[in-house]
Structure formats: C-alpha cells, structure tokens
C-alpha cells in the first residue's frame, strides 16, 4: 500500500464500567481505502467508530487522524469531526428541519458558508443520492432508505476527508438496503476513504479493500476480502461467517 495513512488506531482500549468494549485495537486506514469492519454484535465495531471522532473518549491508546492525535478537548475535536463524515444506524436526521436544511446545517454553522452557497452544494449532493425532488420534505415523510441517503448527503456536505458508516443499513427494510449500498459503492468508486461497520457481507466482499474481523473487542483477523471470505485463517472468523450462511464459495 503506497497511499498515506489517514486514520491510525494504536492499541485502543475503551471500557464501559466493567465491560471492556475495545481491548486494544490497532488498525490503519489509508487514503482512498475502504475498510469494512465485520463481526458479531457487541464486538466493539461501532464503539471504534465513535472513538474515531471522539463521540466516546478513549481509556487507553491513541488515535491519529491525518497526522494529528484526536484529543478530547472540544476545539481540536471539532476540527477533526468537520473532516470526518459520520452516518448512523438510525439516520439521526433532524426531524424539525427540511431535507435541504438537514444538509446545509453543517456547512452554514460550522464552515460558515453563505446560505446560497450551502444550498447549491446541498442540491448537488441530493441529486447525487437521487433525492433532488425531496428537498422541501421533512424526514418523517421519507422511507428509511431515503432518510439514510439524506444522511449521507448531510455528511458529504462538509466535504470530509473520510467517511465513517455505522451499520448504515441495519435499520432498513430489505427493499431499501440496495439503494443505500449503491450510493456507498459510488462513493467508494470515486475514491472516498471509508470505514464501514456492516453486516452486509456481499458489500464487504465486493467493495472493501480490506476487511477486519472483530470479536470481543479485538481484531481477530484482517485481510483482503478474498482472504477473509474464501480462506479465513482464524476458526472464529469461519464460525461467524458460516453463522451468516456464508461458506466462502457463494460467488
């Protein structure tokens, strides 16, 4: 890998009371790379994302973004978050704002863009995710898949250097999962750096450059999708994949 590292986790430990959510995770994400985090629920994947942009503070270890350590002082963290888009499992659109205002709120309040410029940027992004005709709707009038696509546009409006996806399709009806995954695939094809927590093995296999398998707060195996899905080395990875009905041959 010749590209420069952009997000580096070094021996990250996170505890919630007696529960150790992350037991020393090290992982490096390079510019332009798509890394999928897979593994059983509760294995620490989502926690790692929330630590990446300091929504959760670390207990031990170090995370650096673009060469600078992510610290939990408010001002420096805000600079990091501006450049790291995040997409949540439950969309978390702002229900009191229209679709357009959901997308412009970041650029106008954080980047201090004028409303007209922010609107233009938002419209371009809404068109990109296929929702140009929904800008005056409120989130409650949209399907789950549409809401998640707005959430992706909202994150992209900050022109981030990196996108974090926290189980972006887990709360969706099966028929709307595809539209969200296809937007994500387009982003990946355009060279966006992405860290994706997902249970969509097919997406991980087709889109990821690398896959990291989590179990009990650790990365138990890391490799190309080819390595992980066709010839997993760690028995626990094989168990997990076969649990999902994945046997390595289904191409």
């Amino acid at each position: 890998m010749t590209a420069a590292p952009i997000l580096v986790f070094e021996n990250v430990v996170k505890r919630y009371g007696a529960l150790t959510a992350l037991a020393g995770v090290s992982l490096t994400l390079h510019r332009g790379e798509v890394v999928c985090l897979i593994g059983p629920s509760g294995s620490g994947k989502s926690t790692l994302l929330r630590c990446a942009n300091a929504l959760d503070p670390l207990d031990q270890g170090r995370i650096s973004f673009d060469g600078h350590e992510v610290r939990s002082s408010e001002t420096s963290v805000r600079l990091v978050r501006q450049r790291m888009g995040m997409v949540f499992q439950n969309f978390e659109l702002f229900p009191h704002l229209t679709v357009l205002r959901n997308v412009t709120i970041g650029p106008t309040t954080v980047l201090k863009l004028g409303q007209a410029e922010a609107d233009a940027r938002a419209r371009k992004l809404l068109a990109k995710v296929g929702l140009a005709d929904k800008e005056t709707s409120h989130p409650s009038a949209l399907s789950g898949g549409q809401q998640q696509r707005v959430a992706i546009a909202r994150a992209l409006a900050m022109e981030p250097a990196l996108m974090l996806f926290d189980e972006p399709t887990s709360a969706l009806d099966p028929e709307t999962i595809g539209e969200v995954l296809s937007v994500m695939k387009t982003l990946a094809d355009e060279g966006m750096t992405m860290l994706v927590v997902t249970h969509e093995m097919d997406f991980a296999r087709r889109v990821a450059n690398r896959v990291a398998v989590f179990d009990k707060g650790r990365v138990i195996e890391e490799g190309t999708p080819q390595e992980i899905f066709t010839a997993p080395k760690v028995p626990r990875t094989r168990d997990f994949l076969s649990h999902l009905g994945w046997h390595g041959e289904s191409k």
Partner: protein
Amino acid sequence: MTFDWNIVWSSLPRLLDGAWMTIWLSVVTMLLAIPGGLALALLRLSGIKPLAMAATAFVEFFRATPLILQIYWVYYVLPAYFDIQLSQIATAIVGLACNISAFNSETFRSGIVSIRQGQWNAGLALGMSRFSVFCRIVAPQALMRVLPALASTWVSLFKDTSLVSIIAVSELSYVALQIRAETYRILEVLTAMAALYWLMGYPQAKLVDWIHHRFKVAE
C-alpha cells in the same frame, strides 16, 4: 330576590381595569418565567454539582409549597428579615415568577432529556459546538414537545393571578371583591367576575387544546 345589574354596568370600567391587570401580570410573569425556567433546567442538567443542587432545591421548594404562602412570604418575610421592601405589584411578580419558573424548569428539563443522544451525536459529528447543537437541534425539538405543557401552565397561571389579591394588587379578583364590599351586591359582582374570567379563559383553554392537537409528538 332582586338583581341590580346596574351595579355591574357602572363598575364595568373598574372591572375591566382589573381584568387588564390580570392579563398584564400573567404576561409579565410568563416572560420572566420562561427564561427563568430554562436557566433552572440548564443548571440542573449542567452536571456542576453545587449549581444543580441549588437549582433543584429552588424548584422543589416552589413546587411543593402553596403559591399563596410564597406570596405572603415575599410580602412579609423579605422586608422583615432582609430589609427588602418591594411594591405590591413587584411582590406579586416575584412570587408568581419564582413559582412558574419552577414549574417551567421541570417542563423544559423533561423536554430536553427526551431528545435522544443520537441527535446530539449527529450534530457533534458535523463539527458543531455543544452550544450550537443545543440551540439549533435539541432546543427547537424540545420546545415543540413541551409547548402543550407550557400552554397548560399558562392557563393555570392566568387563574392563579387571583391569589395576589391577598396583597391588594388590583387585578380582577381584588377589584371585584372591593366593589362587592362597597355595594353589597355579592351575586351580581361575583357573576360579573366569573363572566370576565370565563370570557378570557375559555379562548385560552381552546387554544391549548389546539396546541395539544397540533404539536403531538411525531417522528
């Protein structure tokens, strides 16, 4: 039994003055109690122990004692022990505003905590400050949720202003009772007083119903 409604007609200007004072007291009290309640709610949610405890003590005192006692207390105890002498109207407003602030603070607090953490996270993840997330994302949603409760408090306040008649603030009840004392026309005066309260209160109650209907929590 004979009725002498002329008493009512001839006293109408005074009654209307009283009604005007009732409205004025309610409006001024609410204008103070909204920021007051918000400040108390934010102190309780601030996580700064001494401030949170002080705010809690204030709220629990004013919620758990009768308003009439609070008004007396401000009127008699402040001057006697603290050498603070307020006019009757100022006394009435201080008493009412403290009381309604306490109730509003509970309303605001429940509204703020009802907004889930994910909404905070979504704003913070964009790089917004906590202050900005609160003002633009959490507070507007919380306000929509608590508007019905706030409106109900308003209607109670409107009627409870009658309690300040005990310290001779010339709002509607006080004026009406005075006219009664001057004329001995109990039935006519009390009927006129009831009619005036009802004429003012009924549209407000209907408005509250409408607000309840309009701002039902929808996600």
